[in-house]
Structure formats: C-alpha cells, structure tokens
C-alpha cells in the first residue's frame, strides 16, 4: 500500500510539462500580437489600425479594472489615477532617458532595439509605481465597503490629477535637459500643460502583447484558488471570511494586480498620444472604463473584450453624426442598463454560455 504522499506525487504531472504548459499561452500571445502588428495592422489602413490600437488599450485597462470591480466586487472609480501615474513614470523615463542616452527626442532604434527596450522598461516602471499606489488605495478598502470605497477611489483619482497639475514645467531644450540628472528631472512632469513630445513607441505589437498577457493572467486568476477567493469576497465578504478567506489580503492583491496593468496601460496610452494631460485622465476617464466593464459584464473576460471593442468602435462609426453622437451613446447606455442589466455577457464567459455549447456539440457531432 502506497502512502498518500506517494499517490499524490504519482498524480502530479512532470514539472517540465507543467512549466511548458504555463509558458505556451504567453508564447502564443506574443506570436498573435506579432501577426496583428505585421499583417492585420497594415491590411486595414491607418484609421482602422488606430482604432484597433485603441481597442487593445481599452481591453488592457478595462480588463485590469475588471479584476477589482468584477472579480473582487470592490467598486473602484479612480482607475484613471493609476493610468496617469504609470504614464508619467514611463514618459519621464523615455523622454528624458532618450535625450540623455540616445541624444534624441524622437523614437530610437528598430524593432526591439535600444529605444524600444527603454520603452518596455518604462511600461514596467509605470506598472510598478502604479502597483505601489495600488497598495495605498487597497488599504482603505479594508475598512470601507461598497459606495464608500468607490468615493475614496474617486478622491484618490482626483488627488493624483491635481498633483500632476502642480508638477514643474517640462524642459524641452535638449541642452537644458542634459544639464540635469534623471533624478533632478523627476518633478518636471509638465504641470497643468501636460507632458508632451513623448516619443511614439506604442505599436500594435506592444499593445496586444500586454493585452493578451493580461487576458491570460486574468483567465488563470479567475479559475485559480486565489481568484475564487476574490469571487467569494464579491458574493459575501462575511461568508468568505468565515470560510477562511483572508479577505484583507485578497482585496489588496486585487488592487495591486489591477493597478499594475492600469499603469502599463497608461504608459501605452501616453506613448500613443505623445502627450499626457492630467485633465484628460480624471474622473470621466475612470467612468469610461467602468462603463466598459458593466456593459461587457462584470467579471466576464470575454465580456470585457466585447464591451471594449463595441464601446471603442461604435463612437468611431457614428463620427459622422457629430453633435448627436454622444446623445445616442448616452441613450444607448441607459437602454442597455434597462433592457440587459447584467451586461452583454453577464457573469458568464463565452465558452460557458448555452449557445456556445450547442454550437460545440453540433461541431463535434459533425466531426463524428
């Protein structure tokens, strides 16, 4: 008779296989992003390529918000604050860094050359700084619930915006910049005028690599024990705690995860626009992201992808309506909330819906 430990060990897959399985989705993600950048982007023309880029950034931002709002049920309306912080950190590194190390304000180097590596470093720096702030915002959530937490996140977002507006002027003369060290330039973030002339490193490749990585991680989180802890906190915090969930830790982890990707999203956003205006990343931007999450379906990954796509593409399609565009958008929002309160996907994923299963069943039947 084998002991329990031996039987468990026999059932456990080979470590090499499990490491391989965990890497495969990321390799596929990078390959897909490369294909989108190389073939889809040029094929659909400049206008649609830009919309595709916006969709990717929206998926990244709304997907990260979904972890806090959808999974953990902690209503956050200060997500743009994390974007702003991440964007500033990345813009500081790439703009001043380019001048210091490459001697240019433009993009530098080719595909995955020095310039782009600096940009990737900027995105990660932006993510890390936003994640640190996520701890700071996650901590009040230990004491507050529901709307009150939402209001604190709102306050946080507004404070970040004002702090951005009172930073020092951004020197644009290369000679002036070179006279100061990177550390001395840390407060020269442009103030109320915003940070401008950020080199335009953001391409479809980087946006979709980050978006796919987020989606894979969000999927893994959702079906892991950590993710189920978050879902339990969402459903009933007291019951979750009674079941042994460390609700405090679960909520802070959700905030940190979410803030990291919001910071990365903010970096991509800044390097796409070439400018970072604190007024643009205020309360209304946070609300835009909440709308994507609610319309898509709180907690549903496929819902977020659909919601982000629809809410970015539709206003572009209706651009010719000019004055009436936003009115139609507002009415549509109200109608969706009245007619389909759970959002497009509800809490389900695409592969969990009955329609999908039916289609799959037919497909399998046909294959036999």
């Amino acid at each position, binding site marked *: 008779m084998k002991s329990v430990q031996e039987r468990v060990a026999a059932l456990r897959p080979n470590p090499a296989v499990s490491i391989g399985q965990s890497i495969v989705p990321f390799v596929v993600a990078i390959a897909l992003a490369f294909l989108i950048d190389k073939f889809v982007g040029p094929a659909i023309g400049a206008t649609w390529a830009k919309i595709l880029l916006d969709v990717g950034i929206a998926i990244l931002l709304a997907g990260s918000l979904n972890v806090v709002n959808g999974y953990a049920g902690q*209503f956050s309306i200060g997500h743009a604050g994390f974007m702003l912080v991440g964007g500033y950190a990345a813009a500081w590194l790439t703009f001043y860094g380019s001048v210091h190390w490459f001697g240019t304000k433009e993009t530098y180097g080719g595909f995955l050359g020095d310039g782009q590596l600096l940009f990737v470093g900027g995105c990660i720096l932006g993510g890390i700084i936003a994640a640190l702030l996520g701890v700071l915002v996650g901590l*009040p959530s230990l*004491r*507050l619930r529901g*709307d*009150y937490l*939402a*209001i*604190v996140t*709102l*306050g*946080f977002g*507004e*404070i970040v915006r*004002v*702090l951005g*507006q*009172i930073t020092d002027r951004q020197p644009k003369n290369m000679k002036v910049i070179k006279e100061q060290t990177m550390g001395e330039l840390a407060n020269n973030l442009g103030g*109320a005028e915003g940070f401008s002339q950020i080199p335009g490193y953001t391409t479809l490749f980087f946006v979709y690599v980050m978006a796919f990585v987020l989606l894979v991680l969000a999927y893994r989180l959702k079906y892991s024990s950590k993710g189920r802890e978050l879902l339990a906190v969402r459903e009933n915090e*007291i*019951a979750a705690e*009674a079941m042994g969930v460390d609700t405090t830790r679960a909520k802070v982890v959700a905030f940190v995860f979410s803030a990291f990707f919001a910071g990365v999203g903010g970096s991509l956003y800044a390097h796409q626009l070439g400018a970072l205006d604190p*007024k643009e990343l*205020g*309360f*209304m931007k946070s*609300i835009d992201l*909440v*709308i994507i999450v*609610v*319309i898509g379906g*709180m907690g549903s990954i496929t819902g977020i992808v659909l919601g982000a796509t629809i809410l970015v593409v539709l206003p572009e399609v209706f651009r010719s309506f000019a*004055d009436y565009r*936003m*009115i139609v*958008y*507002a*009415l*549509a*929002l*109200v109608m969706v*909330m*009245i007619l389909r*309160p759970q959002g497009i996907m509800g809490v389900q994923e695409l592969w969990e819906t009955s329609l999908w299963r039916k289609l799959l069943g037919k497909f399998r039947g046909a294959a036999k």
Partner: protein
Amino acid sequence: MSSSLTAGDLLQTTINFLAVGGLYALIALGYTLVYGILRFINFAHSDIVAWGGWIALTVASGFGWLGAGSPAFALPVVLLMTMVICAVMGVTIERLAYRPLRKAPRLNVLITAIGVSLFLQNVGLLKKFFGNRPSTISSLMENKVLATIGGVQLRLFDMMTILLTLILVILLERFVYRTKMGRGMRAVAFDERVASLMGVNVNQVVAVTFALGSALAAAGGILFALRNDLRMTADSSWVLLGLKAFVAAVVGGIGNVRGAAAGAMLIAFVEVFVHRYVIAAFPDKPWVGQLQDIYVFGILILVLLFKPSGLLGKTTVEKV
C-alpha cells in the same frame, strides 16, 4: 504677505467661505436626499445644476431682463420659474430612467445615472438648446455693495447666497421632519418594503424627493452662475462642482439632511479658509495656490477612514 492677514481679511474670507458653503449645501442636499431613499449616487445631479443656470438664462432673456434696468423682482421670478422647471425635469428623469431599474442592482442605476448625465450634457450643447459658448447671467441683477465693514464690502450676491441657503435648508428640514410627506420619505429611506406595507406611496415619495432635490440644484446653479461664468453644459467645471457637493454630502453622512449642510460647511472651510491661509503662510511657493482640490478630497478620505459613515451618519452593522 503676513501683513495682508488683517481682521478685514479674516472677515472677507469668512464671507467667501459661508457663500461657497451655502452653494455646496444646496447641491449636496439633492445628492443626500436621493441617496437616502434610493441608495445610489445620482451622477446626473450636477447636470441639473448646469441646466438650472442655463434655464435661468433662457427665462431671463425671454423676459428681456438681462442688462441694465431689469426690475428688482426679476431674480426671484427667474429663480422660482427655474426651480419649478428643474423639479419637473428631475421627476421626468426619475420616471423614465430610474424607475424601471428600481429593483435592479445599484451599479446599473449608477451607470444609468451616468448615461442620463452624458445625455443632459450633450443635449445642452446643441444649438437649439444652449450651445457650446460660455455666457453669463450676472447682468440679471446688480451685485450691489450693501455695507462696508472695516474696508470689507458686503456684496449682495454673497449675502443672498448665505440667506437663501439658510431659508431653503430650514424649509427642507421642516418638510422632512414635520410633515406627513417628510415622514413618508424617512420611512422609505429606512425600509422601502415595510414603508409601502404601511401605506406609504413609494413612487410618490421618490417623485417628491427628485422634485425637491432638483429644485435645490436649480437654485444652486443660478447662484453659482451669478458669481461665475456660465460655462457650457458639458464643461468639466460642473462635474467638479457636483463632485465637491457630493463629497460634502458624504463627509456629513450621506442620507442625512443636517449632515449635508454640515459637510458642505466643512468642505467650504478647507477649500476657502484653509486654502487662503496656507497661501499666506507659504508666499514663496506658488504651487500651494492650486491645492484646494487636494484639501477637499483629502478631508474626504480622512473622514471616511476614521468615521466611514460620515460626521453625522449612523453606523450600520451588517448582521449575518
């Protein structure tokens, strides 16, 4: 700089703070009434404030009362008419957008409120409505100097704001605590189901709540527009005004009428009073001049961290 901090300066700052606080109180009451009864943040409230200012402009120009020679009764008439129009607007919005969602999750109502807010902002921008250029209604009435104390001019608009707020808050307080309808409102706020079993007409109570809140918002909008430019309805300054009033309602204890007034005074105190004296204390640091929003949202976070239900709010314990 310290020489400027005289007694006159103190008086001037106090008057400013009271006037701003009164304005916030008027708007905060609308948030607090709706939250107390329906438990959702009515994001469209700040747009009713904006529309209040613009409707007042439309009414006043309709009567030809803008500019010199407008009669003394112009402002009261415009104020009353605007309050009535906005009350009707508020009730209509509730009937069409919020009532179908009475039983839905609160987040849905919240998003609907954002939808209504965007709708009002963008309809207001249309040329057939108010357009996208700023205007002004300050010519509706002359901002007379009523008295001069120690070199400080007591101006009509400031005094009127303080007085009008005082009257409206006292009236509302009496309405909520002394009338049958007010008792119905408090009953619905306490428990909607039990209240309706006791014969309270919930739909009527909600309609009255929206009418009251929107009328106060209209008054707030007019008073704001008298002292500032009348910006286009989609301008972010309206959203910020609404946010600050909402913060006041939360700080005071949302759902509580007296709390909203107290919270508004606290918010105005840090925004006007503290701000003025911090600037005076650090004359060599120009960036402290932009910190007022930080005080407002900072005090919000501090209050919520130490007393999550607000200054005058009741703490509720969730029972398992």
